[in-house]
């Protein structure tokens, strides 16, 4: 019986070493470029600009147009919204596009292009866009998160007062001009 036990334990021991070795490196993603080994840098710029287009002239602008009498919602979803039945899900996209599509990408781009000869130009462009987007968000929603956003250490950024956010935005787009 003792021999059995020793054999079993030895096999178990070798298995824990052998086991992992057979499956290492297979989980490296062959389908997408990983941020662990590549800096996209300026390739992020187009996306930031497109996201801002969606924020500034997208769904919310259409809703604003209906409520201010420029357009009429005739059927289905837009008829409901025209009659002031607005469901929370209608504002999900603008929020995501502003924070994830613009601010996160902008801050990542600034970090990744620090050493580029055009660093000042890139950071200037995206800072203006960020200020534009967050300014619009603050104008639409009032108190919104800003001081703690895009920080891996903070899961749930705190909501700052609208005035403070608008002031921060103003500083953000003015600084590049002064440089």
């Amino acid at each position, binding site marked *: 019986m003792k021999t*059995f036990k020793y054999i*079993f334990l030895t*096999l*178990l021991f070798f*298995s*824990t070493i052998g*086991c*992992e070795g*057979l*499956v290492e490196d*297979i*989980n490296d*993603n*062959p*389908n*997408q*470029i*990983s*941020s*662990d080994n590549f800096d*996209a840098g300026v*390739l*992020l710029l*187009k*996306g930031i600009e*497109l*996201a801002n287009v*969606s924020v500034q002239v*997208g*769904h919310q602008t259409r809703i604003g147009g209906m409520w201010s009498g420029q357009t009429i919602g005739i059927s*289905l*979803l837009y*008829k*409901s*919204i025209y*009659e002031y*039945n607005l*469901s*929370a*899900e*209608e504002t999900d*996209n603008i*929020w*995501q*596009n*502003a*924070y*994830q599509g613009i601010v*996160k*990408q902008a*801050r*990542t781009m600034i970090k990744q292009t620090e050493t580029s000869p055009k660093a000042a130009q890139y950071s200037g462009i995206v800072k203006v866009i960020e200020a534009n987007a967050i300014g619009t968000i603050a104008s639409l929603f009032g108190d*919104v998160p800003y001081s703690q*956003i895009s*920080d*891996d250490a*903070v*899961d*749930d*950024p705190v909501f700052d007062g609208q005035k403070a956010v608008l002031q921060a935005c103003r500083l953000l787009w003015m600084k590049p001009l002064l440089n």
Partner: protein
Amino acid sequence: MKQVFTILLLVSGMSLSFGQRTISGTVTNGDGQVQIGANVTVKDFPNIGTISDIDGKYQLSVPNEASMLVFSYTGYETQEVAIGSSDKLDVIMSEGRLLEEVVVTALGFATKKDRSGTTSSNVSSNAIKSSGESGILNSLAGKASGVKIVRANGDPGAGVNIQIRGANTIGGSTQPLVIVDGIPISNDNLNGSGSSSTGGGVSQQSRLNDINPEDVESVQILKGASAAALWGSRAANGVLMITTKQGKLNQKMKISFSTSYSMDEINRKHPIQTAFGQGAAGKYSPTSLNSWGDKIADRSGAADEVTTTGAYFLADNGTKIYPIKTKNSREIFTDANFDQVFQTGHFTDNNLTITGGSGKNTNYFSVGYLNQDGIIKNSSYRRATVRFNNQSFFSNNIVLTTKANYIYSDGNRIQQNSNTAGLYLGLLRNPADYDISTYKGTYFNATGVAFPLRQRAYRRYLGDNVNPTYNNPLWTTNEQEATTTINRFSVSTNLNFNPKPWLQLDLRGGMDSYLDKRVYFAPVGSASYNNGRLDNEDFNNSELNVDAIARVTFPDLVKGVVGFNGTLGFNINDRQRKILYAATQNFLVNSKLQNFNNGVAPYSVSNSLNHIRSNRLYGILSFDAYDKLFLNLSGTQEAASTINGTYFYPSADVAYQFIGGTADDDKIISFGKLRASYGQVGVQPTAYKFGTTYESFTYGTYDDGLDINEFGGGFRLNDDQGNPVLKPEIKTEIEFGADLRFLKNKINLGVTYYKNEIKDILLAVNLSPSSGYLSKYANAGRMENRGIEIDLGLKVLETKSYGLELYGNFNNNRNKVLDLAGADRVPLTDQSITSNAIVGQPLGILFGSRALRNDGGDLVLDANGFPQLAPDQGVIGDPNPDWRGGLGLRGNYKNLNFNVLFETYQGGDFAERTRFVLTSFGTYGTVGNEVTLTKDLKNSAGKVFTAGTTVRGNIHNYGAGDVLLDEGWYTSIGGGLGGSAINEFSIADGSWTRLREVSMGYTIRGAKFKKTTGLESIELSLAGRNLSLWTDILGIDPEVNQSGVDNGFGIEYFTNPSTRSWVASLKINL
């Protein structure tokens, strides 16, 4: 030399001629029939033996010293008969005790059910074939407690959702592991890039249905964690153990040919109103979206007044459609439209099997061909299979088993669900006075310019725009295609080496590989794809599995007291899936050519590789004491490429037979066993989630998308954050149960109570977008299930020539989501009503827009007495049933046998979204009424209708008195699309009871029959599936699921309907 040789020859000759005698005789059984294939051996001389032949006769040379012959046959008592002075020895064999039920363990080795401490459900090949289903999965429905088997819809080859006990994961793979002859095979049900599970798409196949049910000997469902723990992180959803047929040793060749024919029809239709025509506000309009037009009966009945000068449509069959000035015709086309698109579906299934065996080989060969046309015209499914199973006994202790199977399958699927190019959406929104025939032709505009190959649908009745808005259903069935072609090959081999009586070594390997090529095509002028559509999607999937297993058996470790079995094994499994996808939605020329030469940029092209490898070391220790107490302990150590580190999955089960298995006593309880078990299994994470990647993207809301690929391409940091410390989800389960048999095994009862908890559930946890990411795949959730399973069998009558047995099963699983790492809700499906995971609720809970209520739960009505839309969405229903069960009766009388099976699900909600949306369109049967008011009533706009007026609508009381529900109500928040209507009102009671299966069979056989025809037997059978359905749901079978094979369920939205069928079969055995 020569002398020695002669002496040897003489001596050997002497021993041959003198020391031997030849015994012969006939073996019969208690019914007076000959026993073919009975084993005749000599006691104490293990190498001498023979088998009785086709006439029951045997002949054996036995040494003079032999004293006894031993006769044995499966199902009969082994007899030892003394050899007397006569050389003739006839024997009559009598039926033995009920053979102990044999089940297979998780490794595919046979064991006796009475010794097992875990629960499993066994379905035999007879039960599978008697159901008449074309696929194995469907034939298992209702036959095992706690196992939910549901077809996604009635399309031929449609996928099947299997859920054992309750939901075991939120975002991971939901289907059980399928093991065929010891090797895991693919049961994929893939949507791919070409089809959406809820939006524009078709119902996808389940790969397990590729296997020909004719080849299946038995299916065993391992339900609990302790039974499946050996499979580690692939076993959380349970395991389906399938064993295919083998030949028998020393069996003469048996050929059988079977043919089946089935007729299918739709089993529940949406009621459509035929009183009011196309239009709005009571006025006819030929271009209106809705059917809130004029009353058809009030029209003059003359021919329509049309404008023949100017634009018109010339259909391909020569009919001219002119713009309508005044609609006079009272003709209704609802039934005619339906009959142009639906038909009586049918399938033919032909199978040929040849089995046999010599003293050292067994063979099983089968070839089958199934050809099915669905109830929707042009939907089809074909399957051809070839199988060869061989066992070679090279010597007494080496056996090589090889099983090889090739499958070819193809089919054409019809678009469904939330899809303007889908069938039901186009068909059911049609007004009653619109004729869908003449759907294709040329549009001539006012100046005579011709636009050929145009589609004509109810919103574009002249074909005057290349965008028909909703497809004419004839266009969907006749002009569009969604084909799939599968070539699949699986082979498994097992080399068994038995060097010592107590040691068995198995080396087992298998490979299952399939290639699935799909083509989606829609011509120019299709809804959703105005400029045409061509998608090619290729899946290349293969799975390689190798096991090395050593088993030791010491039945008398401590003589008479303790027996021991041990198993040690090592497994390595490698799965790869390669996908290539190319699509264009821009044709150069309006052609039916399915080639990319007719496409123009932008093309959508993507490819991907998914590779997962895992290996396990596992061991089992089994002890049995006094043949009454059985203990099994097992452990699996696993490392997989998608997980960080190695994980250990233990399990233990114990069974105590407090009353042993002798059926002779007259005690009330003839057998009793108590069992308890504990086990841990896991769910693997999806591959490649360790790091944050870059991705391409589209920004927008609804139809205003800005696609980066249309701007020269670019990247963004992925909105899914990477996670390098992924662990598997771990399910821990305990089970208590008893198996009892009463009154000489006439009644058998199995009861199990189980409770499991799943920790570290992998979720795409929603993050606050302001943190910079939208989601992260993390081990974050917790969920539990608990329930009782009961399986009951009652032999009402049992004699040699007739029997009647009542059987049934019951299960009441209770699932609760315990933790979602702070997320309020994780949706499992998309669209206006979602199926979700919400803390404190069972998985699948329905969430959507609801009516405004006060704290007491009462509706808060507006000034006119109507409900209002609540500002935020909430829980609106629970699709999980309170309990489910099956009850059946099977019986046989001489050569006749029959089976009736009822199944019921009680207490689950169902979202009838099609009904809700069609009330807005004015086509549903419930909004075709006219009411004559007996008092003054208000409608939702506050307009008062005086008593005595007849209006179109319904009267309802929400709590503040009767109100009139008319067009205004149904076209705003009382019906229709999106989150701005009260979707809560589409929830209804989805409980159902159905007659799942009725079958009857008759076998013609016997010695006289064989003499006249030369055939062993002919089996005839007739079966009906899903013949009757009792449910409150009006328009569709509540079993269908919009998202198909998915954890999210309970919703249908223009999903293709389900079917009932009749199957007749004939089987000829040579």
